[in-house]
């Protein structure tokens, strides 16, 4: 657990990722690594002549290799320029010792070894395949990454990121949320950020007692806590609350249920991530 990893690519949302990562790095005083994974573009040239002649295989191999080599060389150069710019930006925003790293392959595979050694992983909600970051969709690799890494993940939305001043924690009394509270109560990551503890649709006395205990736990660690209980449709209430109280970070546990349940019931996490207007901090 010695670094912060941020996944940068050429999409408009990369700036937000870079700024968010710089903030995390400064809050935790932990070195930042900016990662760009060079994904291989689809296919190379088409020749539909359908004939194979003398040494076709060797010829084709040579041709494909040359095309790939040229493309990879350009992509690496481009990526290097992009990463250097991101490093400078992060440095100016107070990140600790920003480093850069380039890998070939798929993001969802290459990020894993880095994530193992990371305190927080920062990535954007969508990558290059979704040109407009304001549209609420999930990138194709985000969920795979969320499910396979063990460290907390900060997901940025849109094209910009500002330092959070108020974060919202949706409390449902589950083990997952208790673990979230335990994790962040003693961490310096959310230092100085006001906590809005929101409980939806839990009115039993036992639940309320647990809610108050959670509030006390957070206050003991020095958080300013604004408690709130309400009823209604979870997703719309949380989104509404976020909007009205100018919450600029949502903190939550992620994927409490199995993939099978998610297939039938759908996933809160998925809904929250795809509809949120502000960055989310997820803990597995």
């Amino acid at each position, binding site marked *: 657990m010695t670094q912060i990893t941020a996944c940068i690519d050429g999409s408009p949302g990369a700036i937000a990722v870079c700024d968010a990562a710089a903030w995390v790095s400064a809050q935790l005083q932990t070195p930042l690594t900016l990662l760009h994974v060079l994904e291989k573009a689809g*296919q190379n040239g088409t020749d539909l*002549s359908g004939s194979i002649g003398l040494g*076709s*295989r060797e010829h084709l191999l040579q041709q*494909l290799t040359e095309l790939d080599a040229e493309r990879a060389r350009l992509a690496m150069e481009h990526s290097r320029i992009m990463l250097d710019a991101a490093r400078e930006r992060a440095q100016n925003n107070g990140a600790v010792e920003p480093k850069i790293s380039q890998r070939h392959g798929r993001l969802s595979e290459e990020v894993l070894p880095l994530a193992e050694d990371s305190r927080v992983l920062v990535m954007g909600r969508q990558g290059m395949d979704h040109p407009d970051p304001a549209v609420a969709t999930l990138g194709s*690799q985000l969920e795979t990454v969320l499910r396979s890494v063990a460290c907390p993940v900060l997901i940025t939305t849109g094209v910009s990121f500002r330092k959070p001043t108020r974060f919202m924690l949706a409390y449902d009394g589950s083990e997952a949320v208790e673990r979230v509270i335990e994790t962040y109560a003693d961490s310096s990551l959310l230092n100085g950020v006001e906590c809005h503890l929101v409980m939806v649709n839990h009115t039993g006395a036992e639940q309320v007692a647990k809610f108050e205990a959670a509030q006390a736990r957070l206050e003991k660690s020095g958080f300013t806590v604004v408690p709130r209980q309400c009823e209604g449709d979870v997703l719309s209430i949380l989104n509404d609350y976020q909007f009205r109280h100018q919450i600029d970070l949502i903190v939550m546990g992620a994927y409490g249920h199995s993939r099978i349940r998610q297939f039938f019931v759908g996933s809160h996490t998925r809904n929250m991530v795809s509809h949120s207007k502000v960055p989310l901090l997820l803990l597995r």
Partner: protein
Amino acid sequence: MLNTIKREWFSNIRGDLLAGTVVALALIPEAIAFSIIAGVDPKVGLYASFCIAVIIAFVGGRPGMISAATGAMSLLMVTLVKEHGLEYLLAASLLCGVIQIGAGYLKLGDLMRFVSRSVVTGFVNALAILIFMAQLPELTNVTWHVYAMTAAGLGIIYLFPYVPKVGSWLPSPLVCILTITAVAMIWGIDVRTVADMGELPDTLPIFLWPDVPLTLETLWIILPYSLALAAVGLLESMMTSTIVDELTDTDSNKNRECKGQGVANIGSSLLGGMAGCAMIGQSIINVKSGGRGRLSTFVAGFFLLIMVVFLDEWIGQIPMAALVAVMIMVSIGTFSWESITNLKKHPLSTNIVMLATVSVVVATHNLALGVLVGVLLASLFFANKIGRFMVVKSEENEPGERTYKVVGQVFFASSDAFNKSFDFREAVNKVTIDLTHAHFWDITSVSALDKVVIKFRREGAEVELIGLNEASATIVDRFGVHDKPEEVEKMMAGH
């Protein structure tokens, strides 16, 4: 999971559709030609190509590789069809599929690492030669029309791609077949056509259990064929997948491919098709035309069937000469011409392995035998080389005392040399054999050491062995520890 499906099937839709269509067009003449080699109706090969391509698209381990009825497999079936008929071929194909699935579960795909580069080259060259030789019957005792048509066909295939624009958009083998067929039909030239070779498919394939008696006798008839088919099919598939891996710079799952080939062959045999495997030439055409995903294989099989079922009247009119031209192109394209120029560069042992593989195949028409011979020869040459990694140094410490230092690899190939390096005639009181820098790999080497010790004792010398335990640690079968480099290092350094 969903991501994998999306990547393997739909990441390259346009390229896969186009390439699949090109491959389907190229598959038709080949499937017909291979059926004729095997001695069955063209529809058997066409149904097989459809089934295998479509099934392997789902269950194979190498996206973008084309599997269908192949020459290597048809050559193995000839005698079975001649002596027992089509139904036994279907039964043999079914059993072949079962064996291949078993091989997949036993992870025999990993055995491909024992097949050296020169054996692969030999296999490919032998295959090309066999495909070419299989065309010769069509070119003997025929009128000059056939020669003219074949020559014109080859001309079209190789020159058409140079025509600007159209050249790179229309598959030249298709142009060749269309032109030659048109010429033959317009002038009414009387040459042999595909329709003369047997029945063409006029319906979609239907499910059929092979009509053979389920007895032990049947099993003994088909088993040798099934084993040979399974072995050759897997070999060619593994080699082709290595080639596609290399061309596309991606990885494949070899054991899944083994099981997939088995499932595809079972499916093919139950729908009235013969056994098949991956095709080197077609897979290269697919990659060249821009095919990368599973969709390309599926499209190839699917279009093949559609075209064949609806165009059967027309396909029957194709002169055999046009098919022969296409097959000659395939054999030329499959042959590794580089290997001929490499003969001068490569060491003699490598060349012998390659040439032995080729000659055994051409002599027996069995690719499995050729590969077996090639692999055996390659291993012997290797053992011989490693056997030379052994020296015994001897020095006299003081009068009547001698130390032998053994350095290197002692095993069956070097134990003779090991024995000979000791001087038993010398009259000494004490002999020290220092094995600190030696490795004993097998029982032969240990018994050789025993003999040496006994001989010295008989001459009246006292023998002391140093470092025997460490030197013989390598006798155990599973000694190597790939994932613990420090262990290997310790073992290989002088203990």
